[in-house]
């Protein structure tokens, strides 16, 4: 079977420094993959390269048979990037909600503006997702008056409403107070179990252990390991990986 998402040999340079140095991986539909690795190692950059919010110099990305990026050919075919991006959800560390819009407004904006849905249908669709993240009673609230955990759940609903083929999470719980992390992780675990395809940068080892099909360990722009959690967390991993895992379990209290 063709993988849902195929990322091949991505290279990205910032200021003469190779931030991503030949990254390849594939995701099956319904998979959850977790990306971990030290700070500044290119995790966020990699996610942004998947939907071309950052432009890599080399590599190829295929989503569900559609070419998203192809630097292997002289002349790339015409690609409707906005159409592609509307199929790739993205959840950010800082939520990035639209502050002038209510919860409902945040979730419907993409539906009316990108998908061209009628207002009434958009509201109906949005309410399903808002309910799914447990915020139906907050639908008219504005972002500034919500807790961090609630804001992040809204941003997940915003991504879900677009009916994405895959959702990219970039450290969705890193900006949250410890007591708010759980409510966001619960939503993510539920999504993973319901069969959503998810690519998550996170240091929540508990989450990685319980729902990730595979973990990608990124280090200095390279994939150092790509294996199921049991294997990565076993003692057979390289010293580099074990040191890092020990450090984050101290920091995030994962173990």
């Amino acid at each position, binding site marked *: 079977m063709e993988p849902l998402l195929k990322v091949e040999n991505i290279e990205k340079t910032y200021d003469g420094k190779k931030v991503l140095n030949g990254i390849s991986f594939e995701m099956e539909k319904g998979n959850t993959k977790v990306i971990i690795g030290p700070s500044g190692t290119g995790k966020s950059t990699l996610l942004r390269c998947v*939907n071309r*919010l950052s432009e890599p110099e080399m590599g190829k990305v295929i989503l569900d048979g559609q070419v998203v990026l192809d630097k292997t050919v002289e002349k790339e075919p015409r690609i409707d990037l*906005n*159409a*592609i*991006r*509307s*199929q*790739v*959800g*993205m959840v*950010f560390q*800082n939520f*990035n*909600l*639209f*502050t*002038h819009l209510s919860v409902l407004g945040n979730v419907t*904006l*993409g539906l009316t*503006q*990108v998908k061209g849905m009628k207002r009434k249908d958009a509201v109906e669709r949005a309410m399903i997702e808002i309910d799914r993240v447990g915020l139906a009673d907050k639908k008219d*609230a*504005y*972002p*500034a*008056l919500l807790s961090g955990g609630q804001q992040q759940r809204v*941003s997940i609903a*915003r*991504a879900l409403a*677009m009916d994405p083929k895959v959702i990219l999470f970039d450290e969705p719980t890193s900006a949250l107070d410890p007591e708010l992390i759980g409510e966001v992780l619960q939503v993510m675990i539920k999504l993973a179990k319901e069969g959503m395809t998810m690519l998550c940068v996170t240091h929540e080892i508990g989450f990685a252990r319980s729902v990730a099909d595979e973990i990608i360990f990124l280090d200095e722009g390279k994939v150092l390991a790509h294996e199921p959690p049991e294997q990565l967390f076993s003692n057979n991993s390289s010293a580099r990986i074990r040191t890092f895992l020990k450090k984050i379990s101290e920091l995030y209290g994962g173990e």
Partner: protein
Amino acid sequence: METSSGLMIIWESWPMFLSGTITAVQLCILFLGVGVVVAVPVSLSQIYGGKSLKFSASVFEQVFRGLPALVLLFLFYFGLAELDVSPLVAATLAMGLRSAAYQSQIFRGAILSIDSGQMVAARSIGMSRIRAIKCVILPQAIRLAIPPWSNEFANMIKDTSYVFVVGIIELMRQGRYVVAGSFGNALLVYSVIALIYLFLTYCGLFLMGRLSKKLAIPGFASAGAAMERI
């Protein structure tokens, strides 16, 4: 005896004051309107434009902010005399573009104060850059711009008085006519005019404050900040 006859003359000249006031308000709206229409693309060019757009927008801003209003008026009216521009057209170009330069700074500041993450989020759900500007950036920028924009309004209602130098019959010029017909009772007449400008400024700022409150979003920007600038 003399003051009372002065008061009499002012009383009898009310149609001139009224017509001057209406003209001042109309000019103010016209100049600010031209200012908004030009300032929004100028500020967007300065932020999102390519090198040459950015450069041209900055040159425009620097020139029109850097020149005195009277110099601009003379340039557009007497300088373009060959083209036979009417006083109103010359005044609208001079004052409107001057206001655009100031307003572009206001809008640029407002846009830049919006966290860039929102643009990224908008692009990530598949919005084009233009759509994101229209649906995400501008609605917030307008709200953030209201308090500084009220300042621009307060300046503009006063600055309409400059255009009497190109022969437009606005409040100041009507005042001169009244003075001429009142045997030189200048103090009284110009005091009335001063009161009218104060009243217009106050009304305008009051309306801006109301608008700001009406558009206020819970937890976002500050409602009523415009009123504090009186």
